């Protein structure tokens, strides 16, 4: 009789998550708690880190039904896997974004490509240490500092690396104010940082309406692999700029964005199970992501200095590092670094030009990569 009770309780215990709990789960729960702490106390990307952190905690409690097939987090991940969520994020972003600074000064869009050298340094570095070229491409895109694009490329090229790539991309975006300034100051003189930019021209309503239509046509014609992302970005922007669909623009920028952010963050966190995340690969991806950011910052600044060799009116090289697609963080960093040398040098509006162009730069880099690695 006693043995029967014993085997009863043993069978019950074996079905609980506690029976399968290992130290790796504890580490990842601590990672999740740290993310929530960073979000709440340090105010680092709270909209992203709270959801990712919480679902990371839940995913590391063995037996949680939420992450199993049929569970809510499992279906949230389907939204990522089927590439439904990243275009919807871009839809909301487009509805919130004023592309005026980019339209007003077209020559600065070149910085949106120059600042992406980091993608390729990381790609080559990843190949050097043994990743496949598909994995290397997905890792390299971290350097574009574009979360939805990083997710998009990871799902296409290396879905098994999605947790590491998305965590690296979003974490480094939040850390840009720490990573970028030393590189920017190393590559520029005080005199260069104090260059003031001329006042920008006003962009007309007609130009603002034509912009998303023209860009959607160009991207669909020349880069179909990334057309879903850029097309939705442009649709959201069109809703914003035509002014006759303000409620749709508001819905895209608020309701849709908020719902998608919740689903996306729990989906990303749900992939951070200890057995998949606590690997040497994760450390390598995170290290390569940092290399991508540092080189991208540097190449953007150097790109601006190269442009100055050909321009009558020099541009402030700090605008170059804003070419990394993390909108508006990279632009804000350029603005703040400029203010440190000249408290009246307000670069934010000018820096938004290359910052927005960086979104296209990342999309172009990713699209060309997909076309070469996965031709249809």
């Amino acid at each position, binding site marked *: 009789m006693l043995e029967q009770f014993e085997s009863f309780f043993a069978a019950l215990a074996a079905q609980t998550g506690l029976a399968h709990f290992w130290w790796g789960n504890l580490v990842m729960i601590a990672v999740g708690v740290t993310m929530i702490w960073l979000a709440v106390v340090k105010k680092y990307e709270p909209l992203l880190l709270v959801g990712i952190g919480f679902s990371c905690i839940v995913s590391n409690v063995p037996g949680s039904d939420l992450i199993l097939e049929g569970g809510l987090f499992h279906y949230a991940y389907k939204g990522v896997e089927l590439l439904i969520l990243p275009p919807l994020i871009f839809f909301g972003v487009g509805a919130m974004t004023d592309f005026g600074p980019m339209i007003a000064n077209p020559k600065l869009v*070149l910085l949106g490509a120059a600042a992406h050298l980091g993608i390729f340094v990381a790609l080559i570095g990843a190949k050097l240490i043994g990743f496949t070229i598909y994995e290397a491409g997905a890792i390299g895109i971290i350097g574009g500092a574009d979360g939805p694009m990083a997710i998009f490329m990871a799902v296409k090229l290396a879905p098994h690396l999605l947790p590491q790539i998305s965590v690296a991309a979003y974490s480094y975006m939040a850390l840009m104010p720490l990573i970028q300034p030393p590189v920017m100051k190393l590559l520029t003189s005080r005199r260069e940082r104090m260059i003031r930019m001329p006042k920008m021209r006003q962009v*007309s309503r007609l130009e603002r309406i034509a912009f998303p239509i023209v860009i959607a046509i160009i991207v669909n014609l020349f*880069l179909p692999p990334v057309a879903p992302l850029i097309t939705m970005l442009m649709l959201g922007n069109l809703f914003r700029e035509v002014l006759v669909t303000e409620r749709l623009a508001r819905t895209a920028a608020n309701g849709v964005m908020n719902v998608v952010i919740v689903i996306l963050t729990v989906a990303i966190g749900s992939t951070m199970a200890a057995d998949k995340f606590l690997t040497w690969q994760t450390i390598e991806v995170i290290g390569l992501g940092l290399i991508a950011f540092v080189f991208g910052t540097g190449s953007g600044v150097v790109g601006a200095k190269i442009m100055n060799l050909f321009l009558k009116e020099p541009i402030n090289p700090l605008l170059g590092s804003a070419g990394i697609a993390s909108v508006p963080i990279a632009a804000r960093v350029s603005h703040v670094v400029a203010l440190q040398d000249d408290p009246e040098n307000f670069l934010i509006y000018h820096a938004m030009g290359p910052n927005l162009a960086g979104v296209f730069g990342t999309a172009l880099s990713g699209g*060309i*990569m997909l076309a*070469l*690695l996965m031709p249809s």
Partner: protein
Amino acid sequence: MIVPDTLQGAVVLSVIDFFLSIVMIGGIGVVLALLPLLNRLGRLDDTSLRGDH
């Protein structure tokens, strides 16, 4: 896959991608530089466009 899964392939991919993206974004820049020509067609009044639909 057009590009081989080797270090050489990674370098070739990177060089082509980087320079092509500069060319394509330059093309977008040219298109943006031409957008002001649209203003010759007329002007849209923001006040008349605004309204809840």
